[in-house]
């Protein structure tokens, strides 16, 4: 939202603050001011000038023009404007002036030295008319009337969504007055409003949707361009000057935050203006020349024929002001914020009016807007007359809320002492009514422009007082609270430990999106229908919530394999699983991958090692494989009897090189953590060890052999350790030999060599009975 510094100065008295300082003050006390920019600086040098003589030069449109500039004397300029003629009065820009970032110099055009230029309204930033040079009145040398250099303050729209009053200059001027101690001027003279019966009737169907609709009819209207000062003012705050009637409605909106609309009275049909929900299928051709198809969720202003405006958003083209308009009806109304917001977003049409109405405007303001507009129209539209009194429909105005404010409570909230007198002064300057309700407590009445949504409880007043005394005036203070360790968060600590282990083992942490596309899901054997689906996805490749970290990890592998021969990555993130009802289940997983382009690094075993670092004694159970897994290199990770994840190589058809992947369910792992560790005495009698090499089929699992040996060695077995495996001569094709070291002991004595021999013989015999052979 753009604010003119000159406008604010006009609405205050004794404002002695630079625009930049004002911007800073507004930021720290009211709402963020994102920038303060000079506007129309060049107008300090531009002056009124009379064209004395015009002489064609060259073959084009350019003319050599002699002008009397008063301030700068007689000047010769080259001008190509079609309306340039002797005797006219226009605007002269002397050399050395900067226009739109460009310095005007003495240029030689068609052999004539042009000392400066005559300028159009668009070139001067006064309006958007670039069709010819400005047509003015006045004496040469005089400044352009009402067009002084200004500054524009840009206030962040998001910072004032809760402040309907700050969508107009008067509201901001009130803040400025409260901040700086300047006095606020009242721009509205309600006494100007005519008495008597209104010539137009207003009917409101739903007072919730339209709490108030005020209208004023005027006649003997002459539509034409506004005076320069009005055009310049609107242009400075980013509004497009159109004609005197429309410009006045926009001016009032920018000043009082009250959107207004002007209808051509002669184009309205029927005796009444009706505010009602649209009927399904009704259409409105709007002022922007777009046609809107309406339904009953839209509120419209209608005459006997149908909609003439989309309430609070935009007027209709057919009933708008045009050059020949002679009689007008001014609308100044108040609409329900949420209804306007919905309509405007449904039709993707945000206008200066809808932006204001969706902030919940003050119903008191409607007739104020009419009074101000009437005063301005009398200035810019000579001869205009009111046609009867004000039509004012609506429900009774709400009673201003009053809040009991205990001053001691306020000080506790702020953490700083504030005198009741200061609280009173601050609130009064902001327009609140304040009186002492009881000792130590104030009765505060909320002004209508703050009562629509913004201020309703005493906490809201803490903000008013706090921001005005200034938050930098509140000293930081440590709270006096009980010192105690916070409740633990075991999941966080566990995830941290997993992260640390993985990083120490050489893995780099990646973060991936929670979204996947259907194609990605299918590639990894998942049905898109099993996913939680985004209703408004950011792209077709991001329509589902991930049920596995794999699709994105796979993308990471592909991308990074362009730059690296081999690498290790991991991610800790949530799988999101659809549930029959309620929120989906979010399961934290850790997925790690080792990639090697040459297929050299033994990624699977390295990942198995990582799994063992995370879970001492975890086991790998091959069995089945999934479509995207290498069928001979895949297994489940089992810990403490529970499946906690998968270890596999990606199917070689998916990529070049080798990629091993470990996927662990951190929630299950956390549940399997044990603390209660107990010490066991160290054995006092020495143990004995011997090695055995079992001959088995090549695909026999080492874990299977180890388990069988262990069964046979019980109960004397202390430990069994894998040593090595071998295949090749003299073993027959398809066979391998796997060697283990077995350690046996008794708890109460040293085993004799005969006893050890007997155990060994028992094991060999047992294995032979199961069809295994030994290399002895």
């Amino acid at each position, binding site marked *: 939202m753009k604010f003119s510094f000159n406008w604010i100065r006009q609405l205050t008295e004794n404002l002695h603050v630079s625009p930049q300082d004002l911007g800073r003050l507004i930021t720290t006390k*009211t*709402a*963020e001011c*994102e*920038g303060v920019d000079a506007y129309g600086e060049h107008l300090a040098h531009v002056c009124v000038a009379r064209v004395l003589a015009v002489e064609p030069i060259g073959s084009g449109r350019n003319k050599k023009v002699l002008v009397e500039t008063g301030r700068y004397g007689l000047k010769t300029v080259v001008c190509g404007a079609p309306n340039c003629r002797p005797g006219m009065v226009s605007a002269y820009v002397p050399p050395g002036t900067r226009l739109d970032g460009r310095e005007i110099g003495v240029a030689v055009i068609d052999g004539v030295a042009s000392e400066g230029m005559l300028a159009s309204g668009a070139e001067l930033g006064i309006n958007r008319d670039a069709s010819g040079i400005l047509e003015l009145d006045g004496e040469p040398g005089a400044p352009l009337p009402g067009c002084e250099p200004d500054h524009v303050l840009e206030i962040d729209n998001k*910072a004032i*969504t*809760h402040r309907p009053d700050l969508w107009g200059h008067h509201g901001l001027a009130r803040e400025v007055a409260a901040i700086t101690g300047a006095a606020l001027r009242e721009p509205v003279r309600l006494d100007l409003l005519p008495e008597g019966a209104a010539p137009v009737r207003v009917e409101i169907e739903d007072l919730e949707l339209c709490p108030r609709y005020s209208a004023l009819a005027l006649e003997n209207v002459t539509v034409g361009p506004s005076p320069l000062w009005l055009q310049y003012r609107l242009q400075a705050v980013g509004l497009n000057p159109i004609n005197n009637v429309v410009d006045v409605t926009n001016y009032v909106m920018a000043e009082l935050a009250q959107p207004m609309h002007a209808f051509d009275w002669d184009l309205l049909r029927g005796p009444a203006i009706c505010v009602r929900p649209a009927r399904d299928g009704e259409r409105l051709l709007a002022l922007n020349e777009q046609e809107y198809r309406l339904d009953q969720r839209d509120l419209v202003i209608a005459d006997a024929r149908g909609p003439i405006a989309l309430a609070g958003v935009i007027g209709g083209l057919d009933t708008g002001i045009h050059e020949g308009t002679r009689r007008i009806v001014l609308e100044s109304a108040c609409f329900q*914020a*949420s209804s306007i917001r919905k309509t405007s977003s449904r039709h993707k049409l945000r206008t200066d009016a809808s932006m204001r109405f969706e902030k919940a405007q003050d119903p008191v303001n409607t007739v104020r807007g009419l009074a101000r507009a009437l005063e301005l129209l009398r200035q810019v539209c000579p001869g205009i007359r009111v046609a009867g009194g004000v039509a004012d429909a609506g429900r009774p105005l709400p009673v201003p809320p009053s809040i009991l404010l205990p001053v001691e409570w306020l000080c506790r*909230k*702020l*953490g700083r002492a504030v005198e009741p007198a200061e609280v009173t002064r601050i609130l009064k300057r902001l327009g609140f009514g304040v009186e002492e309700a009881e000792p130590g407590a104030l009765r505060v009445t909320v002004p209508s422009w703050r009562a629509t949504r913004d201020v309703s409880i005493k*906490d809201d007043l*803490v*903000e008013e007082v*706090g921001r005005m005394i200034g*938050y*930098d005036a*509140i*000293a930081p*203070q*440590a*709270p*006096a*609270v009980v010192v105690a*360790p*916070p*409740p*633990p*968060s075991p999941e*966080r600590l566990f995830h941290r430990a997993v*992260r640390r282990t993985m*990083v120490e*083992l*050489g893995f780099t*942490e990646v*973060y*991936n*999106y*929670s979204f996947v596309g259907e194609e990605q899901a299918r590639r990894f054997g998942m049905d898109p229908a099993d996913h*939680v*689906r*985004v*209703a*408004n*996805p*950011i792209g077709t490749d991001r329509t589902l919530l991930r049920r596995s970290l794999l699709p994105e990890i796979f*993308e990471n592998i592909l*991308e*990074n394999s362009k*730059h*690296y021969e081999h690498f*290790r*990555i991991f991610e800790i993130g*949530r799988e999101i699983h*659809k549930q029959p009802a309620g*929120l*989906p289940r*979010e399961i934290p997983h850790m997925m790690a991958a080792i990639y090697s382009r040459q297929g050299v690094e033994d990624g699977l075993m390295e990942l198995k090692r990582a799994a063992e670092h995370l879970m001492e004694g975890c086991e790998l159970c091959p069995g089945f494989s999934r479509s995207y897994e290498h069928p001979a290199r895949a297994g489940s990770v089992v810990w403490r009897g529970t499946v906690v994840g998968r270890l596999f190589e990606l199917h070689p058809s998916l990529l070049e090189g080798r990629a091993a992947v470990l996927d662990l369910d951190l929630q299950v792992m956390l549940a399997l953590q044990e603390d209660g560790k107990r010490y066991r005495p160290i054995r006092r009698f020495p143990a004995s060890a011997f090695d055995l090499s079992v001959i088995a089929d090549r695909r026999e699992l080492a874990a299977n052999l180890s388990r069988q040996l262990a069964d046979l060695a019980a109960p004397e077995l202390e430990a069994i350790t894998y040593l090595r495996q071998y295949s090749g001569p003299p073993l027959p094709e398809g066979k391998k030999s796997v060697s283990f070291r077995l350690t046996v002991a008794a708890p109460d004595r040293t085993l004799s060599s005969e006893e050890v021999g007997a155990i060994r013989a028992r094991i060999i015999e047992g294995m032979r009975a199961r069809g295994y052979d030994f290399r002895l």
Partner: protein
Amino acid sequence: MLEATLEDLQARALERIRGARSMEELEAARVEALGRKGALGHISKELGKLPPEERARVGRLLNAVKQCLEESFEARRKEFEEEALRRRLEAEWLDLTLPAPEPKRGHFHPVTQVQAEIEDLFTSLGFTVLDGPEVETEYHNFDALNIPPDHPARDVQDTFWLTDGNLLRTHTSPVQIRGMERFKPPLRMIAPGRVFRNEEVDASHEHTFYQVEGMMVDREVSVAHLIYFMKLMVNAIFRREVAVRLRPGYFPFVEPGFELDMQCLLCEGAGCPACKHSGWVEMIGCGLVHPNVLRMSGIDPEEWMGFAFGLGLTRLVMMRFGIDDIRYLQSGDLRFLHQF
């Protein structure tokens, strides 16, 4: 007669000791002279046959020869050992400038690093670290936070809605609600996490980013306390005294609400492109917990007060490391991640 033999034997043995070219040759010479069946052993057997007075004299000589030879052997053996050790040391020269075998240590994601620092800081101040779901109900994300149904924050364009009617949380603030539902006051908590906004991605906007939510509810909680913790946090994160300012900011779930700006670290407040020439950078949205929010979570606002804040973790990480493109954070690009 024996004496001459002994002297001869000694001379020959010494000759062989000196001449030995290896440990093996030396050992052979030793066995020949001093071994059980060696020359000296042979002579000592002869000793018994001598008359007693001669036996004593020759015996002494025998011992002297034996000792002499043993010492010589020992000395020579040491020479060999020293030589062997010297050779081994020579052979075992290692180029310590060679790189250690792979893998090198990996890298924590930059967000993880800063998040851990913040968690540790607040844990040390008695705050617990909480977590909440990334998929949230409309109630927890909006209603319970005093964001009315027609508030612009609920606009479709900002929120990722799911077809089941739930949504992806647009801020970590719902964890405030979940925290209050789980723990009774007094409570102190923070909640770091991933949040989502339906925004076009460019160098400074992401649809997925990180925040840290914080909340304290107690009998007496004031703006002064809030400022205390915010300053503490900013100084700890940047490991120096950083100027901050509090200014009004609007969030429906706090009243009063603030934006906390910190002085731009790049220009020290003088103004630069990074801070849009204001000298300040928006860092934290915060305020005193709105009584409606307390009430909706079953806490009596007349008895309890609280503050809450939401910190843009992603933005903080970018400032801390000077990252100029937000998209790198979720890219999985190791050329980026290996730098942290």
